[in-house]
């Protein structure tokens, strides 16, 4: 009887068995990575906008308070995008002829909305309410990142459920005094752990059991 296989096939055979296991592991890991990756979440990708609005300039440079434009953030679940009127408050005076701002003026003239591209877009089965987070001392920066350094706005966090849970399980690690919610680059005056715990008590922030109940965010 003659050999069917060459000598080398022995090693090859063994390698394939363990290789198979290895490849399986690799694939699943890659998928998990992909899911959180910037590609899937669109995090850290600056978006093209009809008007190249720069938070870096307005919030950072000019130091406008977030609430000057996003007026409803404290009262409503939805932090509104400012109406064209708000832009025109200043831009009827400054840069009133800049071609860059033509879309804004056009919108004001023709009374048609500016078609902004949505940057932070949660799935429709998630009900995030800005006002309550603000009133419980969750800073804008905590979720939106250093907006004051974004020439074009991008989404800072992954906005995946796991990410939300971090804070809903341990609010004390993230909350800050109410008066500082809109502050960018906030540094806790002292030990966050201890300040946080104190604020959680002060603001009557619910316990993790309540904050991680499904219906807190899903309806």
């Amino acid at each position, binding site marked *: 009887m003659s050999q069917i296989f060459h000598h080398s096939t022995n090693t090859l055979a063994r390698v394939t068995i363990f290789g198979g296991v290895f490849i399986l592991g690799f694939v699943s890991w890659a998928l998990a990575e992909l*899911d959180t990756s910037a*590609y*899937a979440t*669109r995090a850290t990708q600056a978006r093209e906008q009809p008007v190249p609005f720069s938070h870096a300039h307005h919030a950072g440079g000019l130091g406008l308070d977030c609430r000057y434009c996003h007026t*409803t953030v404290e*009262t*409503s*679940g*939805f932090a*509104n*995008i*400012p*109406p*064209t*009127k708000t832009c025109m408050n200043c831009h009827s005076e400054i840069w009133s002829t800049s071609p860059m701002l033509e879309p804004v003026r056009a*919108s*004001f003239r023709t*009374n*048609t*909305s*500016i*078609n*902004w*591209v*949505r940057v932070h*877009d949660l*799935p*429709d*089965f998630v*009900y995030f*309410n800005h*006002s*309550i987070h603000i*009133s*419980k001392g969750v800073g804008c920066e905590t979720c939106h990142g250093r907006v004051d350094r974004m020439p074009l706005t991008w989404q800072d966090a992954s906005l*995946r*459920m796991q990410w939300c849970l971090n804070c809903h399980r341990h609010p004390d690690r993230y909350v800050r005094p109410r008066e500082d919610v809109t502050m960018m680059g906030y540094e806790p005056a002292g030990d966050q752990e201890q300040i946080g715990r104190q604020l959680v008590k002060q603001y*009557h922030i*619910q*316990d993790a*059991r*309540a904050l991680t*109940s*499904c*219906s*807190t965010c*899903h*309806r």
Partner: protein
Amino acid sequence: MSDLRKKLDLAAVRARLEGARGREYWRSLDDLASTEEFQDLLEREFPRQAIGWSEDENSVDGRRNFLKLMGASLALAGLTACTKQPVEHIMPYVRQPEELIPGKPLFFATATTLNGVASGVLAESHEGRPTKIEGNPEHPGTLGACDPFSQASVLQLYDPDRAQVLTYEGEVRSWAAFLAELRNIVVRQRLKNGAGIRILTETVTSPTLAAQLHAVQQALPAAKWHQWEPAGPHSARTSAMQAFGQPVHTRYNFLNANVVVSLDSDFLASGAGYLRYAREFSARRRVRTDQTTMNRLYAVEPMPTATGTKADHRLPLRAGDVEEFARALAAGVGATNGPQSGQNGDIYKWIGPISRDLLANKGASLVIAGECQPPIVHTLAHAMNAALGNVGKTVIYSDPVEAKPVDQVASLQDLVNDLDAGAVDVLLILGGNPVFTAPVELGMRDRIQKARLRIRLGLYEDETSEVCQWHLPEAHYLETWSDGRAYDGTITLMQPLIEPLYGGRSVLEIVTMMTDLPQTGAYETIRSYWASQHTGGDFEGWWRRAVHDGLVADTALPAKTVAVRGDALAPAAQAPQAGGSLEVVFRPDPTIYDGRFANNGWLQELPKPVSKLTWDNAAIIGPGTAHSLNVDTGDMLEVSYQGHSLRAPVWIQPGHVNGSVTMHLGYGRTRSGRAGDGMGFNPYGLRTAKALWHDTGLEVRKTSGSYLFATTQNEHALDTRRHIIRQGTLNEYLKNPESVHEGAEVPPRTLTLYPEFKYEGYAWGMAIDLNACTGCGACVVACQAENNIAVVGKDQVRRSRAMHWLRVDAYYSGDPDNPAIYNQPVPCQQCEDAPCELVCPVQATSHSSEGLNDMVYNRCVGTRYCSNNCPYKVRRFNFYLFSDYETPSLKLLHNPDVTVRSRGVMEKCTYCVQRINYAKIESEKENRKVREGEIQTACQATCPTEAIVFGNLNDPNSRASRMKAEKLNYALLADLNTRPRTTYLASLRNPNPEIEA
């Protein structure tokens, strides 16, 4: 399912009932019959053997197209998590309105009208989209409650089948073109004082519209204004003329009534002001530790109605026999001197006891005649109330609510005569659908075409539009300014919440076009009218307040004293008692009324009270009649009356009087839209001006063919040992409060291995008072509107795949000819030890820290195990993609605070968790607890009788806690130890000892 029904053996039924010990409950005649021995059963069951081909599951394809029309979403909600989403855009306002805060709903007071009578509502608006209707607590007609029609009116607003363009003979025209046309008609008609102009409207209570019509008639004296409303209070009008010699409006006050006799009146679920009546009536029925008295209701009616189900004594009588009963009762209470007995024992058996009961409660009793009863019955009721000294206490007379009360039948006849005489150049049909609804012998379809120019204003391009050259799209009430009067005459203002979606105009605007200021908009017209009416200064303030409240306070029509003329009570020209022949009874449909709501999926799918029938009407007969005709539910009948005839499927209704056939109007539409067309049959085809409501002389013949009904109620015997409905009589209860729970066992809490979960903070719970529930179904529609619940269509309902989160079960007990009927609303019971949660493999349903049984749609993979393990079967599954993700207009309808569920997902009641969270967030922002009553679930808010109460069980003083503390409180299937958060208060009857004995 109705397709699983079988031959009915009434003898067996009776035998069974004789043999039955104690109170025997049953769901339908079928169960009662289903006691034959095994052999028979096999042979009967075999044809519908459970493993078998289901004939038409492919018809879902057909149905899908329709489903697509119903329910919608904003973007692709409810799909899987962790997927890359499509890019979304945000379009902010250019100039943001003052009062509007994006993301926060606004409420505006307005009103819906039915038969011209306005009921005040609050419309919820999200960024300018009306999404939900609530009752207006300020409004005397609603007191915060809301009826199914109003609830469903938002769906009507967005109905993609609404007429969307102005057409002349099918070609699209502009309003300008129409205005020009109308103007030169008016100009030409001036020459002959408008002798050629006829205006046909529905009943008008709007002062402004009346004024405008008056103005038109000033300018064109010979022009005539006709009114036609197929299901209006014709008899009441006529009776008033006969009894008092003047138009008089009658309204009632049930708060003062200890004893109520209903002469075929469904005052708890239909007719002007019923929301208020139901509220007042139930207030006198609420038995608590601190309120141990109860009113008593006698109901006399052919077809069991919501009112009938609440009666302490219900007497099924042929509609035609009610008059005889009324005469006898009138004699009994000394209002007349007629015979108190006669050959027909059924009619007379209770006259004695009832009259004694009434006389014992002089001034605190009430006799109410049904709108469908002939004038004489109303007159007799007036006489009795007078004799019993109820006038001014439980009965209030006032000037008419209607702007121009006319005998509408005569009015229509008059129009027809003119048409025949060729005297009509221009016929304006403003609203209504006369071609469909007019008495059959008038042959409206052909008659109308005798008018040279026919102009039609309507929400839909319907049967009437078909024969009119001009069709004008009408503005929905949420799209325009208007006004009207409530059941008690209170002036009610209606404001628009949204620009007309299809550029429609209101009746008022069309009429205005005929006046000298044709271009005036509805707002100016109304404002200037009220300015002209306003006395005293600061009209602006008055006006703002009126618009804000949606009504002008204290404008109810003052009571006036009138006396019944003696001659009005002249003994009947011997009421036709053709004993043998069958009686035909016409009634407006409980859910689609006279047909105007035929294209409304919510109302079509709303199970009709008592019968639980959806999407259909039927020839409803009593068990006895069925026996004598040897027919069964689903058989086809050939019914003919006065030469007109049609085919109708039989529905056997326990408690329906024998010897008459009830048909609900409104079905058999041919041009209503995709939902309504071809549903049911059209009884208007038999309805003559002589007999608007009932008459003898109906011939029926069983014909070939059978019909499949879609009901949400399935047919099976209810084992009394299950204690599903607990009830008793007032006296039993007062003797021993525990009596209602006899035999029911509740396992002690210690019967578990596991430690308890503690619920600090809030613990939400609900209590439902079965004694108050009338089974009207308003809560079901409210739930559907609030929670974006899809409509599935007849075929799917037949497969028992209806999606209602909240259902109202009906149970019968006693003799099928006149059973006691119980209603039981069943939402999710929110069990603390929820069987559904245990078995969900993906934790899509689990418990919140406040004891809610959360359902996470986006986590659900659809194993349906939870539903299998739910003893209450309150979970609903999306077998197909029931929600609509395409139709643009319907996307606007949806409540943005509730996920729209996709295919393959389980869904269920969550106590309106979106409302709970809203209230919690608001309260926490203000650093306070949620206030009692701050959260109202949709069903609770709309319930006319306040049967449903929701609240925080950790607060012992909350209404819910207090109700649960009542002795009557019990949990459904308590012996399963699921510890539901929803519990029920047992139902009590207050029978007349004389009769019960």
